[in-house]
């Protein structure tokens, strides 16, 4: 039995390695070429990573991108915008999810259904009217159009949190009611502490979606100092040439915060929430 167990583990490990390899190699290509010069990236001979890594000026691209192309500033902008948007979303959505899961009121079904319906609407459909709204609000060339729609676009998060809260036994809720707690207290003291996993998941999703959004920064930002990282990458692709090496360097830099966030949040998603222990 133990033999079987170990054999299974080895097979599993092998498959995981293979899968990881398939998942990782484009990033590997990006990383490799982010140290390369532009001429060499698409040349017929392919330089291996070791050759590139220890050349004298290997970080040249990175230095150029951060210093001359202001990537430090753009990264801060993106962090600010996406962080705020994701934080807002988890607050708004967990509140809403709680309401839909645990409260009965007239119109709740219709409202929820409406919310879900709008979830399916791709951004290309609504972006032009949205632009006019932003224009009327005088929010052009600020961060607000990048934050507020995400902040308030609660459908996915609300859906997720509602499903999650649905699964939390009502006995917990009852305990709070018996104690005479208000809805707000019940929410904060009982449900929020339980929500580690879905909130962490939602945070990652919301952060990532906002970070990678190209359409809104492109339409709403003209001032260079406000640009986000993803938007800044497009300046390396002009009509006549693409500065591929810098583009790849910038891409690598733009991925790092997302991966860091993922690694950090993994803890909460995977090892976070556990059944509270109240079983019927």
């Amino acid at each position, binding site marked *: 039995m133990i033999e079987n167990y170990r054999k299974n583990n080895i097979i599993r490990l092998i498959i995981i390695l293979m899968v990881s390899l398939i998942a990782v190699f484009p990033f590997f290509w990006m990383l490799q070429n982010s140290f390369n010069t*532009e*001429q060499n990236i*698409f*040349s*017929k001979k392919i330089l291996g990573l070791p050759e590139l890594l220890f050349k004298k000026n290997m970080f040249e691209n990175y230095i150029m991108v951060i210093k001359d192309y202001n990537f430090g500033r753009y990264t801060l902008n993106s962090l*600010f915008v996406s*962080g*705020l948007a994701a*934080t807002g979303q988890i*607050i708004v959505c967990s509140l809403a999810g709680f309401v839909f899961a645990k409260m009965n009121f007239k119109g709740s079904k219709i409202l929820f259904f409406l919310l879900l319906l709008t979830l399916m609407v791709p951004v290309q459909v609504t972006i032009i009217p949205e*632009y006019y709204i932003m*224009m009327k609000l*005088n*929010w052009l*060339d*600020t*961060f*607000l159009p990048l*934050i507020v729609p995400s902040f308030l676009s609660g459908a996915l998060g609300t859906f997720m949190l509602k499903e999650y809260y649905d699964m939390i036994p009502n006995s917990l809720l009852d305990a709070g009611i018996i104690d005479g707690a208000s809805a707000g207290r019940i929410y*904060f003291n009982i449900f*929020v*502490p339980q929500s580690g996993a879905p909130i962490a998941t939602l945070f990652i999703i919301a952060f990532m979606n906002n970070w990678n959004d190209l359409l809104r920064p*492109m*339409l709403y930002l*003209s*001032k260079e100092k*406000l640009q986000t990282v993803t938007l800044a990458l*497009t*300046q*390396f*692709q*002009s*009509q*006549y*040439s693409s*500065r591929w090496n810098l583009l790849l360097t910038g891409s690598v830099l733009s991925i790092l915060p997302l991966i860091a966030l993922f690694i950090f949040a993994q803890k909460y998603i995977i090892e976070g929430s556990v059944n509270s222990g109240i079983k019927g």
Partner: protein
Amino acid sequence: MKKILISFLIATLSLTAIFASGIKETTEIKQDEQITLEWWSWSPEMKEKNQKIINKYESEHPNIIIENTMMSASEYWPKLKIRASQGNLPDVFGMSSSALEEWVEDGLLGNLDEYINNDKTKQEIYTNLLDSTKALAGGNHYYALPFALVTTNLYYNKDMFDLAGLSYPTDNWTWDDFKDAAKALTLDKDGDGAIDQWGFWFYGRYTQIESWVYANDGYLINRDTMRYEPNDNALDALKMLTDLVLVDKVAPPQKDMAAFRQRDIFAHEIAAMSVEGSWNIDNNRNHSDKSMRWGIAKIPLGPSAKVGYIYGWSDSYSMSPNTEYSQEAWDFMKYIAGEGIGMDMYMAGKIPSFKAITESEAFDASAQQPDEMYILKEQAAGAMLTSYTKGWSEWRGYGAAEALGLNGIIDGIVNGEMTFDEAMIEASKDINSVLKRYYR
């Protein structure tokens, strides 16, 4: 934990408020006569060079501040359109030949007659260029000031020609000369049955196809009916090209080259010749092996060729129709269109519209290839033809639509998806359904 969350939220909300209010630019405080001009352009790679020009201009005109906004082409047009819809166009902005007709019709460009007719512009700029730009804008008034011209050329690899014992292309090269050379240059060098070196390379892109049509006195668009009605000369040109792949086998089908960037194929010596925009001189200088020897030539002449016509178009600047400072905008526009700049502002292969610059020594002074830069000068003086219409990017297949439109159809022929005749029927149907929408 929740206290942290709440305080974090309050902190970020207040930061947002501060941020948002602080970022909004306060309206310009007009000190004395300080004028701010907005300039929009679509070449982000020109950032530093533009800044140098601006600094120079501002130092010469202390009461003027120039705000330059640059972005990639795919961003530029939607954002510019939106500014136009608000009636708030920048004072000076880049305008392309393909968009000219539509923008004039929508009343979005400032009329430049009073400036062009009354100063030395007509002597300073190539007449043909000025005229063709005016024609594209409807023919009655000037709406755009050309600052650069691009044409198309035959690029050829001198090393490969030498190895094959061929003499270089001349101004009088015919299609037959061209085909003979292409055949001699298509080689299976290592004997494995697969061609390693192609004589020629092309795909459906407008820069590569239209040149041949015009080199045979052909046209794609009937300008009287504004419909796609290619004449026989045009069809002959298209057939000659597609036959290079299907019959003569001197050029690869487009799908075989899909893994390469289109502009690398000549630069990486996969094909001995190609026809491309003159701005590829810059690409070929920077992306080919330093030891590669190459040159440019005029487009080979078809059997019905009429000499003197080239495929070429201008990049221009236009003025907002309701700018407060039209004289200052005009002065600046002329400055950046040629008056105040030198050859270093032009990507290699783009031809300045100001005769003084093009005909100066600086134009061919570069020690870099190609040796035949004089060809560009001759082309600059020639009469120009284009296939631009309203809705052009849709029916021609440009940018994000590159796999569609006429571009996609021509690729379909060489990829074996349909025969030439089938393709021409489909092209006629598709293109004219687009043109019908714009020209009733």
